[in-house]
């Protein structure tokens, strides 16, 4: 076990108090959001702003021979050479063997995917800027594109970045004696799985606005980002503006899901240009740009082999995951993030002692791949959990029973996996038992016997279990070879003289409810009303340095930092209150906006009045003012692991290939819940995205590298009618490694849904001889498989 800092004194909360950790508090931020009073990037109203349209590549792979800018467009069209001395983005891992490549802010010599930005065009309106972009003529010398995984793996394909081939990185995690496992196995089951390329589809697209502030002599960059501080750091390096003259602000951000958790080329280009202009410029990504040119997600091909005993107990696992990472490596995660993660976590929640993994990252002429809710986990969960169902069939047992037998057991905790992750706590098998009970397995099996085969509708039952690594600490990011280590989070907690509280956090709240849950943590320690706490975030000018919101980290990390700062602040509040009440500090408790000692109490307002405005009322030696800044790191460098089991019942219409979700149940454990209502919303929302992954969402490309889904007519996302209400059971095992025992959980809902739904569809169609191992399972894929199975039977 690796401990990176002293154990936190912040123990798990067992009995929630009103407004504190564990209470179902209504969200502070909903007032402005529900009334339409949020302020997003496109809402900013700064006089003199000109709007940007990017000229983007219409071809997948070409050299640029010449760019002809229309006469009279001087000062309105800008190419890479017009942005000054800036560096290309070079997102690499420190891992030996990683092949780096440059990603210029604007393409100057070569374009490598449809949608790659080439020029910035300015206009008084976006329409005018688009008119201008349309007038620019680029002379392309087209090159053969590399599109699909098989092409990218073929050494005969053209090399995108001057490497010997198009393989960016190969990771080989594993351990244990796989050969012995294979020898001892009663059954060996192998399959190939594919998960399609997806778009992320945040409700608000990306966007950047920037100007030079003459008074403060600083470059102001507004960006719809999840991580303003980190963006400031990297922008400063790339465009040559020192960090103390650079302010990055994330205003209200309409969803991120990972697509705003990268450095964006548009950020670099716009920041560099704004420094050279005397007026603000803004780019608001439209949906077409989002679907074509934003970082995309998934596109995995995983080959998996399991060796199991006669009970289905997995003795060893062998995997090869190939990920098509697209044209460029994205900062800071690098092109290899997905493949490395899939290969690194494929043993799932199971006690599998022998594993040989291979994660292969290839590049191609598609949009670059970035993080999307779940990152490699939906694919890892999908492949492993599909295979567990096939193992169960091979040994003739119920799939959920085989899962239970394979799970890491509570008495093994903390459990070090064969790939080096430290599972912290929990009863994994109990999540299977609870999900099975909620979905009522015997009733579903009876219904299948009754209904299947009587008509076109076939009922199926599917399970999927996973662990979700959250709040990754220092060790994890170092092990992954990242050039920056996102191991901590920071917060300042400060009272104002009138007794109110402000939290200044470096995370960014874009739908997670952090303006409420961080207030609940402060309420836990300081006895304030959470509705009365202001949480300021998303702005390098208002909070100390921190890493941002991603990887299911903010509640653990920022919650821990707010908790520690509040605890320290509470000590000072108690000392001052004790002085005012004429009692000892350890007699004072904080509750209901008051400091209380037995029958006597003083309002916090009196304490802050003394602290800020009447130092003569402070105890001797006490410094004025009331604020604290602290950082937090989890005790385990690999973070805290949440886990869950999803169970789903589907009806597959064999006449249309449509899948209807009849029941959906989730039993999960994210440790101590700060606000169960928000937790449930996260589960429900994640499942919605997982349903899209399983059934609807796919970004296909043609053989020329043209993306075929460029509007919502072609890229289907689930709407309310497609998403059932998810029944949720909470297990609550506090993590021993985090403040209050909180585990992250933001991605979980999206992780298991594709696996559970595919398992259910396969369960339904098994009598018809159909097996589907590719997402999304579209009507075309289901009906084609049914047709093929029918043809096969007729032979």
């Amino acid at each position, binding site marked *: 076990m690796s401990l990176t800092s002293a154990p936190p004194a912040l123990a798990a909360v067992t009995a929630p108090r009103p407004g504190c950790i564990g209470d179902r508090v209504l969200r502070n931020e909903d007032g402005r959001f529900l009334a339409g009073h949020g302020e997003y990037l496109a809402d900013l109203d700064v006089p003199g702003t000109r709007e940007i349209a990017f000229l983007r590549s219409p071809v997948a792979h070409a050299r640029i021979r010449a760019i002809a800018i229309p006469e009279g467009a001087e000062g309105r069209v800008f190419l890479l050479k017009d942005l000054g001395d800036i560096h290309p983005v070079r997102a690499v891992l420190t891992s030996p063997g990683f092949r780096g490549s440059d990603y210029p802010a604007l393409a100057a010599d070569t374009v490598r995917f449809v949608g790659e930005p080439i020029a910035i065009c300015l206009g008084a309106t*976006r329409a005018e800027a*688009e008119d201008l972009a349309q007038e620019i003529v680029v002379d392309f010398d087209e090159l053969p594109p590399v599109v699909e995984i098989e092409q990218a793996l073929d050494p005969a394909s053209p090399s995108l970045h001057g490497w010997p081939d198009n393989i960016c990185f190969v990771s080989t995690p594993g351990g244990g004696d796989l050969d012995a496992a294979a020898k001892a196995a009663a059954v060996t089951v192998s399959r190939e799985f594919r998960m399609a390329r997806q778009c992320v589809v945040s409700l608000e697209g990306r966007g950047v606005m920037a100007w030079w502030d003459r008074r403060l002599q600083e470059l102001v960059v507004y960006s719809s980002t999840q991580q303003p501080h980190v963006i400031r750091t990297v922008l400063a390096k790339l465009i040559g503006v020192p960090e103390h003259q650079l302010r990055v602000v994330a205003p209200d951000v309409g969803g991120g899901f990972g697509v705003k958790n990268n450095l964006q080329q548009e950020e670099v280009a716009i920041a560099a240009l704004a420094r050279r202009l005397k007026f603000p410029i803004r780019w608001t990504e439209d949906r077409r740009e989002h679907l074509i040119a934003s970082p995309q997600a998934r596109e995995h091909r995983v080959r998996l082999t399991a060796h199991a005993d006669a009970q289905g107990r997995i003795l060893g696992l062998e995997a090869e995951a190939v990920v098509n990472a697209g044209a460029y490596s994205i900062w800071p995660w690098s092109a290899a993030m997905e493949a490395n993660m899939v290969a690194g976590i494929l043993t799932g929640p199971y006690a599998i002692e022998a594993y040989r993994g291979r994660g292969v990252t290839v590049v191609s002429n598609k949009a670059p791949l970035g993080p999307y809710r779940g990152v490699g986990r939906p694919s890892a969960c999908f492949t492993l959990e599909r295979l567990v169902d096939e193992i169960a069939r091979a040994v003739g047992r119920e799939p959920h029973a085989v899962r239970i037998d394979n799970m890491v057991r509570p008495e093994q905790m903390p459990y070090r996996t064969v790939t080096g992750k430290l599972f912290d706590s929990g009863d994994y098998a109990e999540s299977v038992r609870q999900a099975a009970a909620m979905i009522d397995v015997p009733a579903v099996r009876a219904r299948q016997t009754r209904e299947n085969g009587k008509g076109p509708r076939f009922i199926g039952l599917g399970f999927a279990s996973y662990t979700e690594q959250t709040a990754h600490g220092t060790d994890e990011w170092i092990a992954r070879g990242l050039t920056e280590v996102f191991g901590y989070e920071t917060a300042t907690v400060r009272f104002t003289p009138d007794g109110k509280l402000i939290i200044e956090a470096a995370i960014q709240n874009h739908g997670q409810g952090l303006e409420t849950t961080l207030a609940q943590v402060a309420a836990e320690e300081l006895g304030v009303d959470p509705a009365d706490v202001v949480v300021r975030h998303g702005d390098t000018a208002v909070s100390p340095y921190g890493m941002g919101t991603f990887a299911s980290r903010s509640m653990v990390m920022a919650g821990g930092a707010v908790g520690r700062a509040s605890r320290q602040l509470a000590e000072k509040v108690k000392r001052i209150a004790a002085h005012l009440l004429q009692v000892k500090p350890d007699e004072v408790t904080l509750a209901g906006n008051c400091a209380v000692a037995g029958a006597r109490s003083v309002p916090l307002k009196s304490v802050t009045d003394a602290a800020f405005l009447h130092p003569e009322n402070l105890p001797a030696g006490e410094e004025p003012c009331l604020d604290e800044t602290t950082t937090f790191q989890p005790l385990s460098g690999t973070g805290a692991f949440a886990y869950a089991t999803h169970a789903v019942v589907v009806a597959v219409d064999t*006449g249309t290939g*449509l899948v209807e979700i009849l029941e959906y149940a989730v039993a999960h454990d994210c440790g101590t819940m700060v606000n169960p209502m928000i937790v449930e919303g996260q589960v429900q929302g994640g499942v919605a995205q997982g349903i899209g992954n399983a059934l609807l969402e796919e970004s296909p490309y043609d053989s020329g590298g043209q993306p075929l889904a460029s509007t919502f*007519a072609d890229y289907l996302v*689930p709407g309310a009618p497609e998403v059932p209400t998810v029944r949720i059971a909470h297990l609550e095992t506090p993590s021993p490694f985090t403040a209050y025992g909180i585990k992250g959980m933001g991605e979980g809902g999206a992780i298991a849904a594709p696996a559970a739904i595919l398992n259910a569809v396969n369960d339904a169609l098994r009598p018809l001889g159909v097996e589907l191992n590719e997402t999304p399972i579209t*009507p075309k894929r289901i009906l084609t498989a049914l047709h093929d199975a029918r043809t096969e039977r007729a032979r």
Partner: protein
Amino acid sequence: MKPMPFDYARATDVPDALAALADAEAGVRVMAGGQSLVPMLNLRLATFPRVVDISKVAELRERGETADAVTLGACVTHGEIEDGEAPEPAAGLMRHVASGIAYRAVRNRGTIGGSASLADASADWVTTLLALGARFVIRGPDGEREVAAPDMFLAPYFTAMTDQELLVRIVVPKTSRDATWGYYKVTRRSGEYGLTIGAVILDPARDRASVVLGAASRTPLACTATAAALRGAPRWTDALEAALRVAVAEDLARGDRPFEPHEAIMVETTILRAATQALGVS
């Protein structure tokens, strides 16, 4: 996704609109509800120097009925049909179809005439109006003419109208009171265009059966063999189902291209389910 600059004019009446369309070189496009045209303009898939908005032309908003038929002005909206603010010719079929077009926001503005004039093979009205045997009243420089549904939809986005003509109203023959119908649309998610549409109208009192398959090919396919098999069928039987499967296959063979295996399954399902609805099989 902003349109190229274009001139906008609102027509006050039909002659006004026709005058705008008269110059074949001017590249004028008619806009009714704008639910297809505006996205195409925004995506710069279509560019027109001038757009003439006909949505406020009173004549095009009229609706009426005779003993035999219902007449709908070209600018009657899907929402108005859904809400029963237009006469119903076919025992509720048109209201049902209207209620399933895209989303209410689209139905509030989109018009039946705009849909018919665009002639998207996946559009609900194109299939439905063919099944109902509607007639299209078209006015142009040479006066008015009437085009029957089978002659109206020639190819995707291509009708019998010239660029100088305007669809002014649609005449939909009434079914008899006892007519029944089935309408089955396969969509991957609610509100999307159909992958396939099956429309079946059975009118035994007039010894008439009509079956149209929409969305699956370049233009809606009149399934005459299936209609013949259904005509006079009193109820659903295994024998009828077997006969229908044969008839559907016969109809599909006359399609404008061979169907892939998965399409053939979906198309057969679509037609048979529309037929079961029309025959009152739950």
